[in-house]
């Protein structure tokens, strides 16, 4: 290493704070945006408390349909009727034509009457969607 040249030495030692701050701010913006997106997908519902299936691989960017305790359907913070849900799913299905298909994650409130889940299941079947995921809340203490 040649460190005798004073000019070279200054270049090595001088930390470039501006680039560092740039990178930090880009990371902050990224995390703020993604965390906001996740919150938008998940409505406040009390999911069924079950272990779930450990073999189910987490879907990448699934379409999340929330069902509240009083049977309202919510997608990305927007409350909609079943017809609205059908339109939104159909749009997703059309957009992903030729892809692996739309992945749907249903987050139902455990106190909701199953009739709302059944109506959604029927509507999904009408559109040719045969697989879905039912989100559960992992229990705090292990279930025997």
């Amino acid at each position, binding site marked *: 290493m040649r460190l005798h040249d004073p000019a070279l030495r200054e270049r090595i030692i001088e930390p470039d704070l501006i680039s560092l701050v740039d990178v930090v701010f880009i990371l*902050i913006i990224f995390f703020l945006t993604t965390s906001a997106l996740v919150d938008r997908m998940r409505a406040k519902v009390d999911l069924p408390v*079950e272990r779930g299936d450990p073999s189910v691989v987490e879907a990448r960017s699934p379409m999340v349909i929330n069902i509240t305790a009083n049977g309202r359907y919510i997608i990305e913070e927007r409350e909609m009727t079943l017809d609205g849900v059908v339109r939104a799913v159909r749009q997703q299905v059309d957009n992903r034509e030729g892809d692996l298909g739309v992945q749907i994650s249903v987050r139902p409130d*455990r*106190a909701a009457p199953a*009739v709302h889940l059944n109506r959604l*299941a029927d509507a999904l079947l009408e559109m040719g969607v045969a*697989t879905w995921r*039912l*989100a*559960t809340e992992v229990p705090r203490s292990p279930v025997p």
Partner: protein
Amino acid sequence: MRFGHGKSAARRRVMRPELTSLIDVIFLLLIYFFLSTTYAAPESALEPALLAQREAAGRSADLQPQIVDAAIVDGAPAYTISGQTFRDARSLGAMLRTLPKDMGVFIRSAGDVTVGWTVGAVQAATDAGFTRITYVPARSGGPQ
């Protein structure tokens, strides 16, 4: 290595980063993230296939599938399979473990039970070792 203490005032200015302000900013960001983070319970998922009731009925004539009905029986939610009634998911799971797994199992939910009760049946079937679990939405209030 010697980096030349006291060589020139200009070099010292270049070499001294404003670490105090940088640390201030980082701590402020940390505090912001701690305060703005909301606790979300860990989620899992179940992945039963979807099947219309008419298809399930069509198959029942040939294969006699194993169907778990989640419905209100005598005023209380119950699971019914092969004429046997279970009042909790654990006893249903114990029964399901004795059944052959290759045929799969159908979970048929009436509209008047809660989603939590229905998902309990799916979880019991998963825990019992079934890999082919099919959700059949019942169109009327009770089991058919």
